């Protein structure tokens, strides 16, 4: 690391910062109300079976993790927060496309060797942090996946919401109960992503937290893609 102070880099556009934090709040509400909704039927499959394999069969999630009080309250939260998620998602994707920033974010086949090097670094098989642009290849992979996951969350949501009117979509996910199943699993992938994401922010690059708040980055990885 250099001794001279790190340069300040304008990193995140206000649309990115707004949609990042707004999505975090909205998603927290959607997950909490979703866990309350789940309680009404804690299995995946038509009545009488067969049922999908799930470790959460019959599970009731802790009181603090649920929002809505009862099924109707949770549904109203869920259906009210679903639109902001779609809206912020479209705003963010629209920004990525218009600004050309998708290039720095989208994981492509050419990122595979870099991703292997990053993995080696994290596994302590390599001492030096590989040089990187705005995002390293593993970050690209993570962010590309989580955006795809967001799209899937919305699509499986619609498949569960309107299984008759959007029967083609519901069928695409394997039917109503399968769509419920995937919609539910996406939650845990989101939760896992968020835990790792937050740990990495604090362990690897705490300056990125300020960058996501103010837009200005002053840390270890100042270069732009």
């Amino acid at each position, binding site marked *: 690391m250099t001794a001279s102070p790190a340069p300040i880099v304008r990193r995140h556009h206000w649309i990115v910062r707004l949609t990042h934090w707004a999505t975090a709040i909205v998603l927290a509400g959607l997950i909490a109300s979703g866990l309350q909704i789940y309680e009404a039927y804690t299995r995946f499959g038509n009545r009488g079976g067969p049922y999908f394999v799930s470790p959460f069969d019959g599970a009731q999630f802790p009181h603090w993790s649920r929002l809505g009080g009862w099924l109707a309250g949770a549904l109203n939260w869920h259906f009210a927060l679903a639109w902001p998620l779609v809206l912020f998602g479209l705003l963010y994707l629209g920004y990525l496309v218009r600004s050309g920033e998708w290039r720095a974010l989208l994981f492509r086949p050419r990122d595979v060797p870099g991703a292997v090097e990053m993995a080696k670094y994290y596994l302590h098989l390599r001492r030096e942090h590989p040089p990187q642009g705005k995002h390293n290849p593993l970050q690209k992979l993570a962010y590309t996946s989580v955006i795809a996951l967001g799209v899937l969350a919305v699509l499986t949501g619609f498949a569960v919401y309107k299984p*008759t009117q959007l029967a083609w979509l519901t069928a695409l996910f394997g039917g*109503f109960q399968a769509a419920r199943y995937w919609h539910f699993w996406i939650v845990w992938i989101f939760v896992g992503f968020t835990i790792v994401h937050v740990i990495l922010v604090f362990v690897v690059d705490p300056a990125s937290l300020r960058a996501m708040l103010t837009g200005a980055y002053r840390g270890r990885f100042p270069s732009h893609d």
Partner: protein
Amino acid sequence: MIDRQQLQRREFLRLGVVAGAGALAAACGWDGGELVRPGLWSISRVNDWVGEKILYSPTRLARTYDARERSASLPSYFISRTMPMLGDPAAWRLRVDGLVAQPLELSLDDLMRMPRVSYTVKHHCVEGWSAIASWHGVPVSAIVERCRPAKTARYIHFVSFDADYSNGWDMASALHPQTILAYGMNDNPLPAAHGAPLRLYSPTKLGYKMTKYLVSMTFMDARPGGYWEDQGYPWLGGI
């Protein structure tokens, strides 16, 4: 009065908690309180509008199944203390009234002489479960043809003899070709547990919209409430 203000301030603080990311979990088990619940209900009305005007096709038919694919069971419930039963089934009539040119009183025999629709479809409960069952009965559209509602009639209020259970329906969903007044289930007469002698059925709606133990359908120009709908469940319940 002061208590009320304090209460509202407490609700407002709670809202602030929700606005703070991560602290949202602190608002656990909270249906919005006096402050936010009306807002959530208003958004629910917007969702009803979207469901009625954008995400609804009057002609798209729900997928039908083979009778062999029927689920082993289909849960049912009633809100009365005991299962609603008619003292004198022969005296039962379906009353059709409200904004109609021809009010009707129809016996079960009358209904059975009208056009008959039967299908095997998937039942979707708001709780998230589903089950496949067969239903047969007279399409609501056939009743509409006979009673000739006024142009101002935009809703139908379906009323039951199961305590004060009822549902309000939009006309478009009621006129869907698969929306029927069912007097039979799984090739048998409709069982008491599922709403005998007559219940509303449609694969375009969630289970709680399909009024069981029917006694009347009233055509209205104003949106009728319903048992669950008045407690906060989505009014449209369209799927």
